[in-house]
C-alpha cells in the first residue's frame, strides 16, 4: 500500500505540473490574442474544463493520500480487474467505431465541404497511424 501511496503522490505532482502548464498556456494565448499576434479566439472552455478536472483530481488524490480508508477505496477502484476490463472493452469498441464513422463522415463531407473532408481524412489517417504504432509497440512489449 505504501508503494501505491508513493505513486499517488507522483500523480499529484504530475497533475499540478499539467494544471500550471495549462494555466500558463491560457495566459500566453490570451496575451498573444490581445496583442494581435494571433487571430481568433482562445478556446477558454477547453482550458477551464481541463484545469477544473485536474484540480478536482488533485483534491481527491490528496484526500486519499492523507486518509487510509480513502486510499484503500482508491486502490480497490484502480486495481479492480472488472473496472480495467470495462475500460479496455469500451476503449476498444470506441476506437473501432470511431474509425468506421470517421470514414463514413469523410465520404459524406466530401460532397458538402472540402475543408471538413480533409479535416476528417487527416483525423482518420492520424488515428490509424497511432493505432498501428501502438500495435507494434505492444507486440514488442508484451
Amino acid at each position, binding site marked *: 500500500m505504501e508503494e501505491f501511496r508513493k505513486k499517488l503522490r507522483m500523480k499529484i505532482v504530475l497533475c499540478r505540473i499539467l494544471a500550471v502548464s495549462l494555466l500558463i498556456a491560457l495566459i500566453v494565448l490570451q496575451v498573444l490574442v490581445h496583442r494581435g499576434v494571433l487571430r481568433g479566439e482562445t*478556446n477558454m472552455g477547453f482550458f477551464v474544463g481541463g484545469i477544473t478536472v485536474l484540480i478536482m483530481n488533485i483534491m481527491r488524490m490528496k484526500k486519499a493520500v492523507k486518509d487510509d480508508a480513502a486510499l484503500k477505496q482508491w486502490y480497490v477502484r484502480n486495481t479492480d480487474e472488472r473496472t480495467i476490463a470495462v475500460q479496455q472493452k469500451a476503449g476498444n469498441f470506441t*476506437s473501432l467505431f470511431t474509425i468506421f464513422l470517421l470514414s463514413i463522415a469523410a465520404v459524406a463531407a466530401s460532397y458538402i465541404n472540402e475543408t471538413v473532408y480533409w479535416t476528417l481524412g487527416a483525423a482518420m489517417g492520424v488515428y490509424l497511424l497511432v493505432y498501428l504504432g*501502438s500495435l507494434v509497440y505492444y507486440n514488442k512489449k508484451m
Partner: protein
Amino acid sequence: MENFRLTIKKRIYFFILLSVIMVAGIIMLAAFGRANDGFNATSGILGAVLAIALGNVITAKIALGNEAKLKEMYIKYTDERSAQITKEASTTTFRVILLGLSAATIIANFLSETVSCTLSVCLAFIFMVYIAVSSYYNRKM
C-alpha cells in the same frame, strides 16, 4: 474446431455480401456520380473496403481448404496475447487521440473555424460513444 470452421464460413458470407455492396456502390458511383465533388473520396474508400473484404474472403477460403492453415488461424484468433495486444493498443490509441484532438482543436481555433468545429464535434462524439459504451459494459459485466 468445427465451431471455428462454421464461424469462418459465416465470415466468408459476410465479406462476400460486403464486397457485393461495395461493387454495386462503385458501379453506381461510376455511372451517376462522376461529376460530384466527392467522387474520388467515395470511390477510394469503397475500393479500399472492397480490397479488404476480398482479401479476407481469399484468406478464409484458403484456411478452409487447408487444415494446417485453419489451425494456424484458430490459434491466431483465440490467442489471448493477441487479444490483449489489440485491446491495449485500442485503449492507448483512444487516449492519445483524445489528447491530440483536444490540442488540435485549440490550435485550429486560431486558423480555421470550420476545422476547429469539425474537430470539436469529433471529440464530443467520441466522448459520448465512450460514456455510452462504458455504461453498457458496466451493466453487462
